[in-house]
């Protein structure tokens, strides 16, 4: 399993042909208390950069963008009832969606953990 990070503060964990996507601990900290999560239905085709989900906190509503092309295979519907999970365990139980990896080449443009850590230091 390899985990990648995007500049939009998403993490992408790839195992086999499936990518699990969520928002990073840094993102949840910046958002503050998350109060609402809107997820796509399974089967939705996404292109890199498309709006995949919406996460709303007491401060702001933000889009979660698809970091790669692919088709949504599963959404973490638990988040609809328990948005607080995003604050509690953003990089674990509070994953947003699972999707197919439509274009492996796009993964190369994402950051690894060390690069992402260095990136948020600059913000």
């Amino acid at each position, binding site marked *: 399993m390899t985990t990648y990070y995007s500049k939009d503060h998403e993490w992408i964990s790839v195992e086999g042909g499936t990518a699990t996507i969520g928002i990073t601990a840094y993102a949840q900290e910046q958002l503050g208390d998350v109060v609402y999560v809107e997820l796509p239905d399974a089967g939705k085709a996404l292109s890199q950069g498309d709006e995949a989900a919406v996460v709303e906190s*007491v401060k702001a509503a933000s889009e979660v963008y698809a970091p790669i092309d692919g088709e949504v295979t599963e959404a973490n519907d638990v988040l609809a009832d328990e948005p607080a999970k995003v604050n509690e365990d953003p990089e674990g139980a509070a994953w947003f969606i699972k999707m197919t990896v439509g274009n492996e080449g796009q993964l190369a443009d994402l950051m690894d953990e060390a690069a992402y850590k260095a990136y948020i230091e600059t913000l």
Partner: protein
Amino acid sequence: MSMNTQGRPTAAGDAGESFRPKTFTGNRGLDMEEPLIFEVGSLENCGVDLDEGDLPEFELGGHARRAEIGLPGLAEPEAMRHYVRLSRNNYAIDAGLYPLGSCTMKHNPRLNEKMARLPGFADVHPLQPVSSVPGAIELIDELAHWLMVSTGTHAVAMSPKAGAHGELCGMMAIKAAHTAAGRSPEIVLVPESAHGTNPATAALLGYKVVSIDAKDDGTVDLEALKTTIAEHTGNIAGIMLTNPNTCGLFERDIKEIADRIHEAGGFFYCDGANFNAIVGKARPGDLGVDAMHINLHKTFSTPHGGGGPGSGPVVLSDKLAPFAPLPFIRKTDDGLELVETEAATNDGEQPFGRMTAFQGQMGMYVRALSYMMSHGSDGLRQASEDAVLNANYVRVGLQDLMSLPFGERPCMHEVLFDDSFLKDTCVTTLDFAKAMIDEGYHPMTMYFPLVVHGAMLIEPTESESRASLDLFVATMRDLVMSAKRGETQRFSGAPYLAPRRRLDETGAARKPVLKWTEPEPAQVTPEAAE
């Protein structure tokens, strides 16, 4: 300490006084602890004498009430007290400086109110015959005229009820124009510096929103715009841009942006919420704008927030004019004609439909026109200039202590700070805003725009005097220095002095209680129980 003749302190507050009584009522002097109206009133009471009468139930068909609906009854003085007490906890522009950036809380001149209460305007009913309200029609037309003059445009749709409604109207006109020309482009460009309602409006109409990045100076990145236009050639419906933008900056490349969009076959929607910064200085029509809403409740001083409904007329370029929604006023040789139906339209008039049941916010039209006429063109220009001057006065008064995200350059009618000046103080933008409440100020807009970290957007408006601005600046400086000295308690627990302390916003959003629940089961009438 000053004392009265009985030797009791006369000064307000607790200066030198450590004792604070814990009151029996929960009231703190004039700060009343007012319960909900359901808890004040009683289901058994009725505030008025109503004839019990024999209501013939059959006339209601199957809609007869089956159970008591549980409305509390109060005598008139009780109802009066309830609302007056609640109103004392309200903060309004009539009570103090209201620096809510992007919302333009400016003084509502009392002359406007007087005009709106003239019986000829106040008592008209939207269903009375048009022939009986020529004055009202003429007033709408007169206001429409001056809106077009001040924006340099060719038509105006008067009926939209507020800003976002106006945006929808403008974008529907744009969509109708594309449809009429046999085109169906799918993309609307929205810069990051636009108002949050802009992408929502485009999405509501089924458009795909493509975001345009901002440059480091907070304005639209023209190069990014050109690239995006090239990527989506032939598929661009238009752009929705706010100018002055939501960072309080004038988009200097606006003409170039307009030209590029027009070349790409798109229309230019300008969010006119910040028009109050440029009235009398620049005409959006000259800048290439095709559609723009005007918030009468911001730019033209009609009441705003709890004080009254919004009103968002949309000015349209000649290309979009034919698609203005019903109803509209047509000038003929015989005078003014109100066109209310498709059937009454002439050739060349292709309204995209109708957005409101009636003509729009008549009371706001009267107030807005009263504001325009009483100020004149020179007065309106001065209002814009003073709004910009006041915002810059606040900027200069605070920029050495607070942090400007885009450098020390002039702003328009609102000044945007970020939270980098609070770094390492353990005080957040939210804490800072709450501490302003203890100082008797409504907080500024926080955490918006999103392009700036921990944003604080301050719009003092033109109606504040220099003395008022000085006090505000001094208060803000005191708060900033307090935060920098490490006096975190003043912020972390704020507000201390408001009727309520820090509200549980997260709890309210996650588990909203939207309904008052009666402690006992609802009363059921004997008839319904049978």
